[in-house]
């Protein structure tokens, strides 16, 4: 059974407290040298909307706890979610989730959180996604949901993903993205690599710029819904450039992560 929380925001002050739920690791997938996906069994998980996140809380044997927020990678479903976590330098929680964790390990999570950076299949208009590095994670939830539900709602709206990775090996979900963008899906995926390309690479190899967004993106007159997620400098540049290209501010949603570099 699949339960999707497609309700709009509940009037503030009327929602029940979000409880901490116990998550058990069912499956660990190595996505890249620094990134792992964890499929979690979470009894009581109510489902979510694509783009939302969760708070994760780890408890050490001495009772010490550490808490962080992570985007949900999976399409909405009851009692399970998938997180994809990148190991950060000195990352107290990410080094556990993307390193130490094994099948059967347990931790807590709470959510779903965030009612803004979300996409549901009922939304009209093409979808234009721009990701940098592990910023692909909430956008992958959108693409997975689009593939799972979009067809049920009639003609699939066109979708485009421009995805910037450091190297070919750093591309998260490479095979699945290729599959999702197959013939007749309406999805096109454009990769760009910023720190070196493998032999024979014929794709883009530079930071995302205005020309790339204009040529590989969905043009402003088609009024695409735009979701941008990645490190702050990428998000700032892309959002600013898309405005310059004529996209409406109202259709641009952003999610940033990482330090500012200042």
């Amino acid at each position: 059974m699949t339960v999707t929380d497609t309700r709009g925001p509940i009037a503030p002050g009327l929602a029940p407290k979000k409880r901490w739920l116990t998550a058990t690791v069912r499956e660990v997938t190595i996505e890249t040298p620094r990134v792992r996906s964890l499929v979690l069994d979470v009894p009581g998980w109510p489902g979510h909307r694509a783009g939302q996140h969760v708070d994760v809380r780890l408890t050490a044997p001495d009772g010490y706890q550490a808490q962080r927020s992570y985007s949900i990678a999976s399409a909405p479903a009851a009692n399970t979610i998938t997180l994809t976590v990148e190991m950060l330098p000195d990352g107290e929680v990410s080094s556990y989730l993307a390193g130490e964790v094994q099948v059967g390990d347990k931790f807590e999570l709470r959510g779903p959180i965030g009612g803004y950076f979300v996409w549901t299949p009922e939304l009209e208009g093409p979808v234009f996604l721009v990701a940098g590095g592990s910023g692909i994670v909430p956008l992958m939830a959108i693409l997975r949901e689009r593939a799972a539900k979009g067809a049920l709602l009639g003609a699939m709206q066109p979708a485009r993903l421009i995805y910037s990775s450091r190297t070919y090996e750093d591309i998260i979900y490479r095979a699945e993205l290729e599959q999702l963008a197959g013939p007749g899906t309406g999805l096109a995926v454009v990769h760009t690599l910023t720190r070196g390309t493998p032999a024979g690479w014929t794709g883009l190899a530079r930071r995302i710029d205005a020309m790339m967004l204009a040529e590989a993106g969905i043009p402003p007159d088609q009024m695409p819904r735009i979701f941008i997620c990645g490190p702050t400098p990428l998000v700032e540049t892309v959002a600013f450039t898309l405005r310059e290209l004529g996209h409406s501010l109202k259709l641009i949603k952003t999610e940033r992560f990482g330090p500012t570099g200042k």
Partner: protein
Amino acid sequence: MSEPPISRGFQGRGNAARSARVPPGQHLVEDFPVLSAGPTPPVDLANWQLSLDDGETPLAQWSWAQFMALPQTDLTVDIHCVTTWSKLDTRWRGVSIDTLLEAAGLSEPPQPYVLAHCDGGYTTNVPAEDLLDGKAMIAWEYDGDALHPEHGGPARLLVPHLYFWKSAKWVQKLQFVDPEIPGFWEENGYHIYGDPWREQRYDGD
């Protein structure tokens, strides 16, 4: 309430490293992460304006030059983002809300709640009393430099005792209202008040 499950193999930094100044569920960072719902608006000081309104009635407006001519206040405070990072001893300079009210000829807030409006359409709500007695300011300088646009420059609301989404970037107007009007994140699942020491992160907390 049952005991939380132990996460096998997790040590973490340990309780000894925790500071009494860090609220529950938070951790310290040295850098200054950026979180905003939309694009960063371009800075335009020539057309910048800060307004105080009572409902739909304008009370006072300041141009950038007029705002900079008001008495300035320095604040060194700890800040706490709902995404779980905290940063200690951040240094800010700006105009306290007390000073703004005085400059507008008001001895007290005309309504008990404030809805802050920002360039780009962002809003957030705060009880008026949480902005008084030196607790809040319109900040334009951070750590000795003009506030960077990514962090809300030219000026942002600073309400450091609440989660940092209340410290609205690119603020343009403080509107006094009654009853309280939920702002952007408050309409999108986050807590109406947002006290980090009571861990009021989300609606229902």
